[in-house]
C-alpha cells in the first residue's frame, strides 16, 4: 500500500469513526482521531499479521493501552479484513463484538483487553518476554496516551522493559497534549518525556504522528538491546475542524448535524 492509498484509507476511517460515534451516541472521538495514522501505519505497513488467522502464533502483537480510542483500532482491523466493515455500526451496542474498550475475547484481531490505563503496557512487556522465551521473532507494539503516562504502572513497565533489554518491544506515545479535565500541563505536567524515556533506557525517536513517512521510518529504526519509544506528536480530534485540539471532544459523541459537517469536511458523502 503506497502513502496515497494509505492516506485515502485513513480518510475513510475518519468518516467511519464519525458514523460509529453517531450511532453509538457515546465514545471517545478526540483520542480516536489522533491515533488513526499510527495504528493504520502499523497494520498496513509494519506489522506481520494474517486477518484470516487472527491468532497466528507468529504474528506481531499490538496492545492498545489507551483503550478508549478503540474505535480507531476497530476501523483499521475491519478495513484490514479481520471482520466485516459493516460490523463497525454495532460499536458499543448490546451483543456487539465491538466493546467500548478493546476485548481480546470478543474481537478478532484484538490482542489484549485494555482500557484501564497503564495496564496495557505491562501486558506488552509480557508479550515481549514471552516471545523471547518461546524463541519467536515477533515484535510487540503498545500505543499509549500522554495522559496515561501519569499512571505509575507505565513507569513500572518501562523499567522492566529496559531491565530485560526488550528490543522486540516498541511503545508509541499518542502525544496530543489533552486529557479529560484539560491540557496535560494543567492537570499533571509530564515534563520532558523524551529525556525521561531515554533516561529509562529506551531508544527514543520523535515524529509527527500524522506523517505516514516519518511514522514508517521510525518503526524501521533498529534498537539493539533496548526497547524503543516513538514519541508521536499528534492533534487530538485530527481531521475534523471543530474537534481539533478541543478538550470537550475527549468523550462526547457528535450529533447528526455535527457528523454531517465532519463527513463533508473529510470528503465523504453526507447521509
Amino acid at each position: 500500500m503506497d502513502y496515497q492509498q494509505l492516506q485515502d484509507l485513513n480518510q475513510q476511517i475518519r468518516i467511519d469513526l464519525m458514523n460509529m460515534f453517531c450511532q453509538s451516541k457515546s465514545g471517545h472521538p478526540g483520542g480516536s482521531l489522533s491515533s488513526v495514522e499510527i495504528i493504520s501505519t502499523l497494520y498496513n505497513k509494519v506489522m506481520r499479521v494474517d486477518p484470516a488467522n487472527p491468532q497466528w502464533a507468529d504474528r506481531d502483537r499490538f496492545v492498545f493501552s489507551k483503550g478508549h480510542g478503540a474505535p480507531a483500532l476497530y476501523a483499521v482491523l475491519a478495513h484490514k479484513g479481520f471482520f466485516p466493515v459493516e460490523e463497525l455500526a454495532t460499536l458499543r451496542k448490546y451483543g456487539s463484538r465491538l466493546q467500548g474498550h478493546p476485548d481480546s475475547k470478543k474481537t478478532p484481531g484484538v490482542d489484549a483487553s485494555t482500557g484501564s490505563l497503564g495496564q496495557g503496557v505491562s501486558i506488552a512487556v509480557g508479550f515481549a518476554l514471552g516471545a523471547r522465551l518461546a524463541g519467536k521473532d515477533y515484535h510487540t507494539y503498545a500505543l499509549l496516551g500522554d495522559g496515561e503516562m501519569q499512571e505509575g504502572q507505565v513507569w513500572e513497565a518501562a523499567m522492566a522493559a529496559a531491565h530485560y533489554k526488550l528490543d522486540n518491544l516498541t511503545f508509541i506515545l499518542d502525544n496530543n497534549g489533552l486529557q479529560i479535565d484539560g491540557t496535560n500541563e494543567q492537570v499533571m505536567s509530564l515534563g520532558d518525556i523524551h529525556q525521561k524515556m531515554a533516561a529509562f533506557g529506551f531508544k527514543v525517536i520523535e515524529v509527527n504522528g500524522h506523517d505516514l513517512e516519518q511514522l514508517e521510518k521510525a518503526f524501521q529504526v533498529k534498537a539493539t538491546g533496548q526497547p524503543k519509544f516513538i514519541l508521536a506528536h499528534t492533534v487530538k480530534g485530527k481531521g475534523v475542524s471543530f474537534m481539533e485540539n478541543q478538550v470537550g471532544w475527549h468523550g462526547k459523541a457528535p450529533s447528526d448535524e455535527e457528523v454531517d459537517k465532519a463527513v463533508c469536511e473529510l470528503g465523504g458523502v453526507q447521509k
Partner: protein
Amino acid sequence: MTEMKALRIAYGEALVELGAKNEKIVVLDADLAHATTTYMFGEKYPNRFFNMGIAEANMMGVAGGLAQSGFIPFASTFALFGAGRAYEQVRNTICYPKLNVKVAVTHSGLTVGEDGGSHQSVEDISLMRTIPGMTVIVPCDAVEARKAVFAAAEFQGPVYLRIARPPSPVFTAADAPFEIGKANILREGKDVAIFATGLMVYRALEAANDLSKLGIEATVVNFHTIKPIDRELILKVAAATPKIITVEEHSIIGGLGSAVAEVLSESASGPFQLKRIGIEDKFGQSGTPDELLKIYGLSSENIIKVAQSIKG
C-alpha cells in the same frame, strides 16, 4: 510429635518439581523471592524466573502477557499486595480476559505476625472471591499446598492461591484427594459441623478431639477451595448436622463464612444454626502468630466454646 513445615516452603518446592515436568511454567516475583520461596525455582530455572522488582501492578500485567504467549505464570508476592495493591490489575488484566495466570500469594492472614496490621491480609479472600471467574484456593498444610500448586497448574484459568507463612503442622495424608471445588470431610460427628480453611483446619481438628472428650462429636470439613464453594457437601452436611461453625484466618466478612452462609440461606431445607469464627471487623496488629490467633478468637479453645454454645 507432629512434623512442622511452612506452606510457603512447600510452595517453592512444588514449583521446582512442577518446573521439571512442565516447561510452560514461569514464575514471577516482586522482590520477595526469599520470603515467598520462589528463589528455589529461580535458581533451578533462571530463564523462566522473572524478578519484576517492587512493582506488583506491572507484575500482574506481565503475567497476563506471558499467559497470552502460551506460558503458565505463577505471579508471587505477599497476599496483601497481590490481592490488595494489584486488585484492579488482577481483575482487568487477568480475570476479565480469563487468562491462565496463577496469582500465588504467601504471608496471608494474621499469621504474618510481627510485621503488624499493615502487612496482614484479612480481606483478600473476599476481594478475590468477588471477581467473576476467579478460583480461590486456600491449602491447610504443606502437603496440601503442594497438591494445590499442581492442581492450579492443571486448571485452565485464573487462580488465587493463598499460602500461609509460619511453620505449621503437617497432618493431611499424601494420598488424600485434592480436587478444586471439592471439600474434604476429615472427621464425622453427629452433634456439630466445623467448616474450616487454611491454617484453621488443624485447630478445628484439635477442637473436635477435645470436644469428643466432652461428649460432643464434631464433623470437620476442610474447605481448601473457597470458590467455587462445594455447595453439595455443605447441604449434605447441614442436613445431617444442622449446627455449623465456620473457621477462617480472615475477616468474617466475605470469606468462607459468608460463602457458606450464602449457600445455607438460599438452599438449605429445615432449621439450621450458623456461627462464623473469623476476624471481626478489625485490623490486625503486631504479635507472634499464635498470640494473634488466640487474641482474635482463632484458637481451638474458642472453637470448643462456640461449639458448646450452639450444641446446648
